[in-house]
């Protein structure tokens, strides 16, 4: 392999990318970057874009609109960045840019040069005029190693990625021997970001030493945890970084075929990655004889058909082979005998996306973040009861408290923190006492949760932990492939028991059974889904046993969540004579007028929808919720039916 030839070929591509970037800058017209990934589109980015286009043509202003991927700040969508060099302002990031705000921005900022301070989230660069986004914890506590370019470049334009330093990792890798490359990844200490944290370097080495032809790399993008969307964001926002990682991995292990496995429920991600493969092949960065070398890599996209369990590597392989997605016993591991019986490396989207910056910047740089055993960063989708939900990339070893309270702004509405569910349905619920736990593979596993793929649900005091456990078990029992006894039947029993408890019909024997059955399912199941499915139950039993006991022994739901264990009543002291608001909203006509012309709820009819509590004017605030339901005073309806 001729290194000079290789670097010269890449240099010419790089020159082209730089020239394009320079030309754009020289045009000196404003650029409007609109976040157009799935989350942005869901909050109306397409309408925002249309509004910009219309307003620009109305005012006859020349500006470039560039759709970009996700910045990770879901609370502020639709996000727009406007770079208007003529005004002297740095690029400014605007939050919640609705159609009306888009028009106003065109009118005020693009036309008259007034940057509309009330919509500003922050400037993207440090300056004297506008506070920079990096002044906020949500930005400056993050460490973007993997998502550095997400939301900053057009995912459909390969040259923007190249101009930002992309594919130089691949060039560097191709100048090394595969063996050196694997050494490099091993020294970096990169661990698989799919959940279990298996060292990526070791996996690659096992695959590279396997003596067989036609090795395959699979990128696992079958992200299915409720509330997790890191892989989708990377696929939609910076597909080329993933493809670069894929190519480096393939070169290292000696594979000539790669498959990106994406959920079919991610149509935009599928479209983006397919487009990216095509454009990379167009400039010989993928496909046959990459950059004129002897290394070829054929990348294709496979769409999953909607089974959660296909995120498990053996089930994923089965489904690519056209079989029913059911996990197989390991060993043999896929690195020995995977897809079509060939050695197969299955790596997560985040793992592969971590590779290019490691190769480019060196292992020392990577180990500079994170902890000794878990170097690098972790990407979490923090959702639930936090002020600033979204995607966060933080250094491993950061405490949960920092992540939830500093980066994500803590719990809104003056509520208090109750628990955080880490790792989706396979993870565990950790209480407040664990907030100082550092986020890394080993500490979280020790606490009973797990890193998982990176879903994090924060819950405030209004969440019932029994109900939360029930929710996750309901999810896993539905998504079980039905193959092995423990997972198929065991999780159904867990669900039935939790149903009983949340309905106030649980017994102490149920509680004991819940614990022992969970332990057995964990030990006895065939694959990772079953082995981790009881985790939400086990951790909530461990840390929130008092809540289970309150449900069973006192018929009480401490969070006032479980319908069967709560009741609404109207405080006659607070209720205003003559006010009829609650009567009108009750769907079952359970509210009647008392002799004193106030209102009361007929407990026999009430379905506990809570509408009356919502509509009762705040100055009265007369509808109260209690648990156990017996605490609600009962008033008999007068015989005339009123």
């Amino acid at each position, binding site marked *: 392999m001729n290194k000079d030839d290789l670097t010269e070929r890449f240099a010419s591509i790089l020159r082209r990318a730089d020239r394009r970037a320079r030309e754009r800058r020289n045009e000196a017209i404003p650029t409007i970057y609109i976040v157009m990934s799935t989350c942005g589109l869901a909050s109306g980015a397409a309408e925002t874009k249309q509004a910009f286009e219309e307003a620009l043509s109305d005012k006859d202003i020349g500006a470039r609109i560039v759709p970009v991927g996700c910045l990770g700040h879901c609370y502020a969508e639709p996000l727009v960045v406007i770079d208007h060099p003529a005004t002297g302002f740095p690029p400014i990031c605007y939050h919640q840019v609705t159609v009306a705000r888009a028009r106003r921005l065109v009118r005020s900022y693009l036309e008259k040069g007034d940057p509309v301070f009330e919509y500003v989230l922050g400037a993207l660069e440090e300056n004297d005029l506008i506070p920079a986004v990096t002044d906020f914890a949500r930005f400056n506590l993050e460490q973007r190693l993997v998502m550095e370019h997400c939301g900053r470049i057009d995912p459909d334009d390969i040259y923007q990625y190249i101009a930002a330093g992309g594919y130089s990792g691949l060039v560097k890798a191709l100048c090394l021997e595969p063996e050196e490359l694997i050494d490099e990844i091993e020294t970096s200490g990169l661990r698989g970001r799919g959940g279990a944290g298996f060292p990526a370097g070791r996996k690659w080495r096992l695959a590279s030493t396997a003596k067989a032809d036609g090795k395959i790399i699979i990128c696992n993008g079958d992200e299915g945890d409720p509330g997790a969307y890191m892989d989708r964001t990377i696929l939609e926002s910076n597909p080329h970084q993933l493809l670069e990682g894929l190519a480096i991995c393939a070169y290292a292990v000696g594979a000539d075929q790669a498959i990106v496995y994406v959920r079919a429920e991610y149509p935009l991600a599928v479209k983006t990655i397919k487009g990216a493969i095509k454009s990379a092949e167009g400039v010989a960065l993928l496909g046959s004889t990459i950059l004129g070398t002897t290394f070829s890599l054929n990348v294709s996209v496979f769409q999953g058909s909607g089974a959660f369990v296909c995120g498990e590597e053996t089930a994923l392989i089965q489904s690519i082979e056209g079989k*029913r997605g059911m996990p197989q*016993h390991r060993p043999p591991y896929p690195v020995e005998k995977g897809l079509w019986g060939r050695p197969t490396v299955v790596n997560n989207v985040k793992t592969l996306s971590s590779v290019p910056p490691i190769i480019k910047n060196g292992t020392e740089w990577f180990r500079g973040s994170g902890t000794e055993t878990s170097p690098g960063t972790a990407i979490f989708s923090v959702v639930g009861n936090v002020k600033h939900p979204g995607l966060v990339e933080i250094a491993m070893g950061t405490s949960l408290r920092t992540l939830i309270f500093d980066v994500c702004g803590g719990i809104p509405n003056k509520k208090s923190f109750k628990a955080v569910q880490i790792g989706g349905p396979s993870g565990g619920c950790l209480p407040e006492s664990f907030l100082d736990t550092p986020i890394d593979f080993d500490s979280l596993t020790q606490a009973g949760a797990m890193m998982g793929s990176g879903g994090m649900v924060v819950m405030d005091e209004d969440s019932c932990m029994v109900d939360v456990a029930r929710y996750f078990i309901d999810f896993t029992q539905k*998504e079980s492939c*039905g*193959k092995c006894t*423990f997972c198929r039947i065991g999780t159904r*029993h867990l669900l039935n028991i939790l149903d009983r408890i949340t309905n106030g019909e649980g017994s102490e024997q149920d509680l004991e059974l819940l614990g022992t059955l969970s332990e057995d399912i964990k030990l006895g*199941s065939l694959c990772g889904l079953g082995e981790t499915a009881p985790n939400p139950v086990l951790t909530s039993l461990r840390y929130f046993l008092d809540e289970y006991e309150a449900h069973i022994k006192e018929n009480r739901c401490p969070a006032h969540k479980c319908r069967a264990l709560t009741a609404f009543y109207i405080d006659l002291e607070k209720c205003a004579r003559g006010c009829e608001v609650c009567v009108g909203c009750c769907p079952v006509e359970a509210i009647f007028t008392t002799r004193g012309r106030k209102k009361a709820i007929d407990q026999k009819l009430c379905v506990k929808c809570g509408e009356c509590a919502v509509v009762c004017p705040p100055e009265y605030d007369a509808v109260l919720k209690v648990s156990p339901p017996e605490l609600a005073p009962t008033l008999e309806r007068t015989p005339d039916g009123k």
Partner: protein
Amino acid sequence: MVKLIVDGKEIKADEGRSVLQSCIENGMFIPNMCFIKKRQHPPASCRLCFVEIDGFDPPVTSCTEEVREGLVIRTDTAAVRRLQRTAFKLLMSAHHCEPKHCPVKGNCQLIRIAKHLNVGLTPKPLELLERDVEEEVDFAFFTYYPFRCVLCGKCVYICRQINGHNLLTFANRGFDTVIAFFGSGDPARFPCHRCGACASICPTGALVRKPECKRASGVTP
């Protein structure tokens, strides 16, 4: 040939065999539902054949462990029994045991396992689970009884082995998983040879052959 020690007794086994098969061939019973002798990759789905191997901490399924020289195995430790009993009770909570109507006469594997584990045929303390499926499903040449089926998958496997393609498959997910039959319309045009192997291999009487179907020779549960 390798030598290994099972419950303190030395047995000889062919290399490449699984621990489960070696034990069974040496007359030592280990509970199992989904195991088929010549099958290349055991599905390991019934989760009954747990044993403890010296050096491994939690029990492992013996159908997936290859015999090795000097292996020390115990089949009756407390941890093994606990998992086996739970797995068995789970199966019994989905298998509606009706001895009066059961087509499996005499040689019931479930009864054998119950005796071996010293437990009854009821799922207690677990409840008997109901499913939202029909009691009898018509498979053209067979009748399928979902409430008897333990989803061992033997029928799916044997059908593929004998016919080269599956006419039987798993359908649905989770607890609603059942065996399904490909084929609709005119039964005469089904690519089914009516060999009857699937019904003969069924250990729980969940697949029952209709009169027009052959009786498979040499196929037993």
